[in-house]
């Protein structure tokens, strides 16, 4: 019994991390039709910036803000200066984001050397909660709470605000949204910034669990891709459900079927792609 509880909690916590990573990726994918392959690099850059902020003496929460801010600004610049010039050429855009991912990865290597670095827990979150014979790290439960709060906030933003209505309109039918007078150019920048902010903040929040090292970007990017393909691009609920499914498969799968540890995350993706190519909750993109 303990096994199911603790691996369930593990899955929940890992799924929460994935949601923070994948929510922005999904929004960008859905609205701009661009698989932003730099998203993993943004996540890693956020983690490194957070670490630099901690080294400079700031506390953990300011470090999260710093990671989010730096990556958010970078995302805005990339969208304005690079992606914008390639609008209408999704293949070129995807390639450019891949190039940016390499540049960021080498930049991080150059700035912070290749030494893997742990990120200290924020004070008060060290240690475990004990429920009977089950012990579970406090910080992981905190990450779950953050993900739930973020999901609610994003849901309110998308469903209850004017900006959200515009984003949804853009995801559904870009041409029609434009015809209705929505300034899609501004919308793109906003969403790209928002997605980058989430990736940057997610990197710092994940630091105490994953630590920071060269290669973190390429470890996380496929996970974000799997979540979004599973859940459906552009769907917040899809990203949420996809993250949880992947989180649970990750933790139960690695424990129950250790020999399949490498492929286990990709099996459900293959299944979904075969049976429902637009993802569990995605709509067919125009």
């Amino acid at each position, binding site marked *: 019994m303990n096994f199911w509880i603790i691996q369930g909690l593990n899955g929940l916590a890992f799924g929460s991390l994935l949601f923070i990573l994948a929510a922005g990726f999904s929004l960008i994918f859905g609205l701009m039709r661009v698989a932003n392959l730099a998203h993993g690099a943004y996540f890693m850059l956020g983690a490194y910036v957070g670490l630099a902020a901690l080294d400079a003496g700031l506390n953990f929460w300011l470090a999260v803000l710093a990671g989010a801010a730096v990556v958010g600004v970078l995302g805005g610049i990339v969208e304005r200066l690079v992606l914008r010039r390639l609008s209408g050429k999704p293949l070129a855009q995807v390639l450019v984001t891949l190039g940016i991912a390499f540049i960021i990865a080498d930049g991080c*290597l150059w700035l912070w*050397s290749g030494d893997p670095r742990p990120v200290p827990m924020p004070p008060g979150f060290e240690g475990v909660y004990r429920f009977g014979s089950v012990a579970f*790290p406090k*910080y992981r439960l905190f990450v779950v709470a953050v993900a739930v709060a973020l999901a609610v906030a994003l849901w309110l933003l998308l469903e209850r605000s004017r900006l959200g209505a515009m984003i949804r309109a853009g995801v559904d039918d870009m041409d029609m949204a434009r015809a209705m007078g929505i300034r899609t150019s501004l919308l793109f920048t906003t969403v790209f910034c928002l997605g980058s902010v989430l990736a940057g903040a997610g990197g710092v929040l994940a630091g105490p669990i994953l630590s920071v*090292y060269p*290669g973190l970007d390429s470890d996380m990017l496929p996970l974000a891709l799997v979540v979004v393909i599973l859940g459906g691009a552009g769907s917040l609920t899809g990203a949420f459900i996809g993250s949880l499914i992947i989180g649970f498969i990750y933790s139960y799968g690695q424990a129950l079927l250790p020999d399949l540890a490498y492929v286990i995350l990709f099996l459900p993706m293959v299944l979904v792609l075969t049976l429902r190519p637009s993802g569990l909750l995605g709509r067919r993109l125009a």
Partner: protein
Amino acid sequence: MLKLTATVSLAALSVGFLIEAAQAQGQGPIKVGFMTVRSGALAAGGRQMEEGLQLCIDQRNGMMGGRKVEVVTADTAGQPALTKTKAQELVERDKVDVLIGPLAAFEALAIDDYIRQAKIPIISPSAAAEDLTQRKPNPWFVRAVGTSAQAHHPLAEYVAKELGYKKIAIIADDFAFGHEIAAGFQRVFEENGGKVVQKLWPPLNTADYGSYVTQLDPDVDAVFAAFAGGNGIKFLGQYKNYGSTKPVIGAMTTVDEGVLKSMGSEAVGVISSGWYSAAIQTPANTKFVEAIRAKYKADPGYYTVGAYMACEFLASAVDQLKGKVDDKDALIKALREVKISESPYGAVKIDELGQPLMDITIRKVEQKNGRLQNVVLKTYPAVSQFWTWKPEAFLKSAVYGRGNPEPIAR
């Protein structure tokens, strides 16, 4: 413009003649092709290798056997395919006399055939794959570090006999290095009456060790953790984070000085083994550690000392040949007969397959002088890659892998 070009080519030509003339007298530089990693996930180890090599060359004022040494560095990016291209470039375009590198075992395996075909002596500063000096020995290969299991045979005996542990769970990176360390440990541990009750193989790029830490059998005496690169940091952090209290036994690289400097209280008390520790108290090692600390502000570890010793091997062989490295057969023969009486490792002697016998230390991580150090508990002198088995018997058993190691009859 035409005149300028003519002058330049004339100058180039004459320089060319000069170099050839100098080489003919054996006075040109000895060219060392150095394969390291400057980009990607292995870049930290690559940088440490460069630091070790540079120190060795600086200490000799850039000279070996009376000739200048010129290092031609190539970045393999830690990718086997690229390693092969780079090795070819170094040998065929740069005409190097000897190769030092590469970093990873799969890179070394990728160039194995090429080395045999090109007949170029190569010194490994890091790659530990067992069979390179065992069942598939390459006559042009000599290793300046231990094999994967060489340090972990004695560790297993220490854990069984001196710590008295009976039941152990193993968690190790799921690639050759992890398999070989784990199997070598298991074979000796079980021969000494212990029992490995569980083995977990997390993929090399496991993002989160939470689901593995929580699978570890709570009834064991200790956990043996064999990780490379930054995975040791991730694992030990999560192990402590889940409130686990069973002692951790580490492989050499789990708490290597290269990553130990980034660790905290989670590493304190971890007992491991290695052919090196920055805390070995010999005059040769103290001098080496102080030199590295002064220059690079960090303790030397696995990669630093491996590259440093690869360079020392070369220097010793070149000195013996008085700088005449053009005869490749003589060079590899000299390299394989290197005897060094004092080094950061201690005394070094190489077996007939190109693998050094090494003093293996059992170390324990302690906080000392404001930093974490691998303090030496015990030394097993001159340990062979075959431990205490007869080489013939050892070589008849299958190479260490993920499955149970075959027992070897005494």
